[in-house]
């Protein structure tokens, strides 16, 4: 009963009072209702000082003492106005977030746009969630300018990581008040599975034992062909490319190798022992994808219903890792 009431209270507080919202697409405008302001600890001390000043002025009937007290009080009010102005009417958008592996820091790009004629200083941004350390980054936004802040959060598990709620706060100019606003950026980062650290070697298919280091498919140079998106940078035929200037119609060409057919590398999720934990298997798949890319071995990829034909290069790698990240089977 009590818990229910409390939950309801927290809900009302968050939704109505703090205006906590779900991610809003597009540009978010910090209207006056979404910006909060309260005295800081220094502001409370300031208030106490005002009381002391007032009592002293009254006790000794110091007219100038009253003038001073009221002037300082009004400075506090002006500071309230300026602190609020420093935060309110800011435009916020979320930029892109690059995929990372689980355990790494996911970076979220946040853009703060100031469409007003005054500079905004010392706005601190930080993710605001109970389980996150409160690491804030400060930003200054010039008049009619945009400022980009990168906030990062440690990713814990694969899949989509939505950006946590961001709290923006500022105490500028006098530090007597703290103004803050909450914002849920409409951004999510893809988290790839954590690549297993001590994984077994790549599962080369074909029962025959392969000689050497498994570079077989790359050894027989068979000429050059036009560059295709996804070709590894390592295989660009730099000598040929350098001959003709790109501006004069030269094109990127890739070295073409033959002989890869001997050892087909197939990364198949289903081939992994079913006794292994799903996450462990995904983790191993991720390691193998990276391994294969590093060694330059073209590989095919099978995961649940998804199948990618044998290929090599960042695009292929990303597709595979993405599939791993978002895998929902077992």
């Amino acid at each position: 009963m009590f818990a229910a009431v409390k939950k309801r209270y927290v809900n009302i507080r968050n939704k109505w009072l703090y205006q906590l919202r779900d991610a809003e697409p597009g540009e978010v405008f910090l209207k006056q209702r979404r910006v909060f302001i309260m005295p800081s600890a220094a502001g409370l001390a300031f208030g106490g000082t005002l009381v002391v000043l007032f009592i002293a002025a009254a006790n000794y009937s110091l007219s100038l003492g009253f003038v001073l007290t009221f002037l300082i009080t009004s400075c506090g009010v002006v500071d309230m106005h300026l602190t609020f102005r420093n935060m309110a009417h800011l435009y916020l958008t979320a930029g892109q977030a690059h995929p990372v592996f689980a355990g790494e820091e996911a970076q979220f790009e946040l853009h703060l746009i100031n469409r007003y004629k005054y500079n905004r200083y010392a706005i601190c941004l930080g993710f605001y969630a109970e389980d996150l350390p409160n690491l804030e980054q400060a930003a200054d936004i010039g008049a009619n300018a945009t400022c980009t802040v990168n906030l990062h959060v440690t990713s814990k598990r694969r899949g989509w990581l939505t950006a946590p709620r961001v709290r923006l706060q500022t105490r500028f100019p006098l530090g007597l008040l703290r103004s803050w606003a909450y914002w849920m950026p409409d951004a999510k980062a893809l988290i790839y599975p954590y690549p297993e650290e001590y994984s077994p070697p790549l599962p080369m298919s074909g029962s025959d034992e392969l000689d050497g280091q498994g570079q077989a498919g790359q050894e027989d140079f068979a000429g050059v062909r036009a560059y295709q998106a996804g070709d590894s940078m390592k295989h660009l035929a730099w000598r040929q490319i350098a001959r003709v200037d790109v501006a004069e119609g030269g094109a990127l060409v890739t070295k073409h190798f033959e002989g890869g057919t001997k050892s087909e590398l197939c990364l198949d999720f289903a081939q992994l022992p079913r006794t292994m934990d799903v996450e462990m298997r995904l983790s191993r798949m991720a390691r193998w994808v990276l391994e294969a890319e590093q060694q330059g071995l073209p590989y095919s990829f099978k995961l649940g219903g998804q199948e990618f034909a044998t290929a090599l290069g960042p695009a292929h790698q990303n597709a595979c890792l993405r599939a791993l990240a978002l895998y929902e089977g077992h």
Partner: protein
Amino acid sequence: MDLSLNSALLAMRRGTSRPMSRDKADTLLLLVSCGLVIAPHTAHLPIWTSIQCAALLLWRGWLTFRGLRMPPKWLLLSVSVIALGTTYLSFHRFFGREPGVAMVILLLGLKLLEMHAKRDLFVVVLVSFFVMLTNFFYSQSMGTAFVMVLALIATLTTQLSFQYTGAVPPFAMRLRMGAMILGLAVPLSLVLFVLFPRIEGPLWSIPGDGASGRTGLSDHMSPGSITDLAQSDDIAFRVKFIDPIPPQTKLYWRALIFDTYDGHTWTHSDDQHPQIGRPDLSVRGDPVRYQVTQEPTGQRWLFALDLPHSLPALQGNPATFSKDMQTMALRPINDRVRYDFASYPDYTLQANQSRNSLLQWLQLPINSNPKARAFANQLRAQSSDNAALADNLLQYFHGQHFSYTLQPPLLGDDAIDEFLFSTQAGFCEHYAGAFVFLMRAMGVPARVVTGYQGGEVNPVDGYMEVRQSDAHAWAEIWLEQRGWVRYDPTAAVAPERIQRNLVSVIPRTTLGGLITLHSGKESLLSKLRFNWEAVNNAWNQWVLNYSPEKQRGFLQSLGLKNVDWENMIELMVIIGAGVVGIMSLPLMINRQKKDPLQNVYLSLCQVMARAGYPREKYEGPRDYRLRLIADNTKLTPTRKNAIDRFLRLYESLRYADLQVQQSKSGFTQLKSLLSECK
């Protein structure tokens, strides 16, 4: 060798031209603002305290400038102990206002050496505010106010300089911002100043406050003692009359009686023990009842109109009459007190006195002022009637070229002689002193009375205000049958002083009397002087003397009758909210600023929506354009053409490279296309 020297020199030069690090600059700014806050105090602080403060600031400045570490705790502690010790040596006490102020200032200096976190900055700033206020104990002039404003701007600039986290604008810009904050604060503080209900101080008194730094009558009278008071506009006491107010010439507020003269100073001898019960006083006529609200004097005497009949009741501080009719409280008056008196202007005091008991009132220093004594003998020969002698003497003061001035010439050993026969210029204490001297020399018992004369009724609240400038000295002589009778020789010299007030006789001079402007009324100088006086007066009236009564009076003059403090708070909140509201109006309006280009695009979308083709949320301008062109039902070909061109132009303006985006002509073209689309 040469090379390394060169490079070292280069490095040095680079070192000096390199801008100071932010921390350093901020700290030095803080030191400057603290210096500005403390500087006005050096006028009254003991020299050692001032030196210590300067040393602390310089020490901190040096540490900051050289990038050295803060002093260790033990060093700070010993410095604090030294500071405390010198404060005690200077004042011989720790409690009270003056040592308190000195210690707060030293605390500010010490805190600067113990600053570690941002929090400490606020401590310094808040203590600075307090130090600024304490300066008003000593001066509340316009100059002080000006310095306060400067110090406040410096403090605000420092405070905001510490708040930057990244880019720090140049100093001039920060200074402007500090000044802007203060400037914006002025309207609201004006409202607060005018409307905040004033509390009648003091709320308490700090021990040891009583004796120091208060203007008021002193327990002796020497040439100059009342002249000093005449410069002060402070209120000595306020009187509320229950009965009609007696004429100005009868308003003699009696405080002290002097019987002993040593050739320079009048004092009262120690045998004036308080007397229990009423002295021999017979009164006639109706009493004048009134209530006195006396400002603290740090002395025991009370003020009564000549001559009170019964003792006032002071709570916890009983009052007594001395035998010469001084009213004394048991303990010094260190708080504002209020007491009731009933006085009889028509009285006979101690009409029956033995010759012996009157001997006290005939004392004179031996072998002094021979000319005055000779003059007295000469007068004595003229008449045997003491009253006639006194009248003759008044006539003498009136007839000779005696002048009444606040700047009397200095007098030597035979002060009375010099005053009577060479300088012939003086203030009331000179006249009263000379009169009593001559009367005594003639064998007439006489004494000097000091107190206040006159008073001004405040038309606002009906209180009579008696100021320090109304301080006065007069004489009483003892006559057979009539007892002690008041004679005021000043009235013989400057009757206006008694009929009106001091200012009517002696106009104020500027700059402490250094410049006396006696040129004609029309001259520029005198005009300037009048203006300056007016400004000064306005400052005194509207800023310094803005008391609870004045506040009520001001509101009444605005047409607000019977305003109590609750109404005042309501009024203050309403007007204050209005001021703050006007200030923050731009923040209250949540108008999103849209890109002008986007605005034009959105209006096209609206036009199209009205035509029945709303843009879908997922559609970009290109998809939208293709859909609109493909439509063949409602849109005419010309219109479609316009839409096509509009959206193509918009696309290039929005997404093409910057040069196209910033072209003004493209935007105007887009606008004209919009009207074609309609």
